[in-house]
């Protein structure tokens, strides 16, 4: 019988709120990963020391504070943090005005951000079982930090990574991911590489073949539809599963109630939980899927 992982994701509404701080960080590297995807490496000594995988930063994309369009900050997962070097990176897709402005920043520019925010992935102190990471599209952004952390603590042999993308040229940083796990499987929707189909179909197949299902922890990040399917598969097989959700955020610190997601509640039929402070990582069984 595998050890039961009683993890510490907060499940109270008044969960202790992670204390983010305001930082001005210098961009020390800027990379065009694909025409519409950028990676920024930031000089962020203090942030790098205290963030954990799954947490995010709330970034002011405008050049000056008094440019009011776009007005609000944008949330981005911490893609990687290197406490020794004092670096933090983010990886993002240029979707609209905010990310377009962010993409225009170059080495030497300063970025105004609040972080680290939110509750990240719960990682057990010791674990004899395995880890299965499932990423969809940009969902790989926080999973890379998680992967490196798990590898460092438990060794690559215990880790499998499943990636789902639309087409083969969306497979980012393949080598870096591959060398941190024992199995790295890709599914493409158009069949241009690896398994043809959705990553959730791939997950279903892999789960069937696991010899110790209870000893497997699943971590996932990607589009909501994918997460819902991952949650269903894990629920069916009784797997412990944590997912990182994306919602629209205004404050990022729990004050405005804009970023909510429907969760089960002991007293009510459901309640709306703030993804920025109770999440963005949730136990998949907590979410009330519609």
């Amino acid at each position: 019988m595998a050890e039961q992982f009683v993890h510490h994701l907060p499940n109270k509404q008044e969960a202790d709120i992670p204390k983010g701080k305001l930082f001005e960080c210098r961009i020390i590297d800027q990379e065009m990963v694909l025409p519409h995807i950028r990676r920024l490496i930031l000089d962020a000594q203090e942030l790098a020391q205290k963030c954990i995988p799954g947490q995010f930063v709330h970034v002011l994309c405008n050049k000056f504070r008094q440019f009011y369009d776009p007005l609000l900050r944008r949330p981005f997962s911490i893609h990687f943090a290197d406490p020794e070097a004092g670096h933090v990176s983010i990886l993002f897709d240029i979707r609209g005005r905010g990310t377009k402005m962010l993409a225009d920043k170059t080495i030497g520019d300063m970025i105004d951000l609040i972080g680290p925010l939110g509750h990240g992935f719960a990682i057990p102190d010791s674990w004899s079982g395995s880890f299965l990471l499932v990423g969809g599209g940009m969902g790989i952004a926080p999973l890379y930090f998680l992967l490196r952390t798990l590898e460092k603590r438990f060794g690559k042999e215990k880790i499998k990574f499943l990636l789902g993308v639309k087409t083969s040229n969306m497979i980012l940083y393949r080598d870096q991911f591959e060398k941190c796990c024992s199995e790295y499987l890709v599914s493409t929707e158009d069949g241009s590489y690896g398994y043809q189909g959705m990553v959730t179909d791939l997950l279903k197949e892999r789960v069937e073949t696991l010899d110790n299902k209870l000893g497997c922890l699943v971590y996932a990040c990607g589009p909501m539809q994918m997460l819902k399917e991952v949650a269903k598969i894990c629920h069916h097989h009784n797997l412990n599963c944590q997912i990182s959700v994306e919602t629209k955020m205004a404050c990022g610190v729990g004050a405005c109630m804009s970023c909510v997601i429907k969760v089960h509640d002991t007293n009510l039929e459901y309640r709306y939980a703030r993804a920025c402070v109770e999440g963005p990582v949730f136990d998949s069984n907590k979410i009330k899927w519609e």
Partner: protein
Amino acid sequence: MSTASSLAITIAGIHMKNPVIAASGTFGFGKEYSSLVDLNKIGAIITKGTSLEPWVGNPPERIAETAAGMLNSIGLQNDGIENLINEKLPWLSQFDVPVIVNIVGHTIEEYAKVAQRLSETDSVAGLEINISCPNVKHGCIAFGVEPRMTFEVVNAVRKATHLPIIPKLSPNVADIVAIAHAAVDAGADAISLINTLIGTSINAETRTFRLANITGGLSGPAIKPIALRMVWEVAKAVDVPVIGVGGIMTAEDAVEFMLAGASAIQVGTANFVYPNAMIEIIEGLEAYLSRHGFGHISEIVGIVQSPQC
């Protein structure tokens, strides 16, 4: 002369170190921002709208960004008055900052009960009455859209509490001055204005409304000219202090509201963009006073002049 005293004011009997107040719904219950903002430095905190029983709130999407503003349809999600009293107020009371509770209700009785319950505590400096809530008995129209209903709800709260009361007016009306008069006649000690303006947003690509609730409240710099005009109109018309709110991002914005007649100001959406906004506004107000040779903040209230032709 110390700088602290040049900004200190008393509004509706509530003493504040300065006239910069955190607006309801944009600062949570203070705790959310406590690692980013020194709560002891701001004039007052107005908490998120609180009702008798917990309110679940509207389904997401709850926000949409607009040009220099945002729309929200939070639906006044809150944990109810008992939770506020047992969990939030005790934590807030460790700080040296007046706490004003923003109260909401579906019926006049609910407003009165919340007000009465808060009077039994000793950690509340005053009540701000959000009269933009849907009145369930009158087909879900807001209390604050009509002078008669405004009078009734404010009057009921007045009778239920000895605390200072500050009705917060909705700008979604034809004649804001008539509403303000009704609020003062009913016993208001001061008036806050404005709340958000009703708007909507459509995604052309998907041909759907962006908010699940279809409409939401517009806030941010986009609404500043409207808020400023309403503050000016109401401040001239009533003899209680007016607290200006709507799109204030900088000290200069705050000064404009005070010149228009506001005795204090609230900062809302700006907190999301730049948590330090209130602190910078406080510093900027001090700098403005000394730059223009004013001894006290009250000297600039309502002194705007018509342009010389």
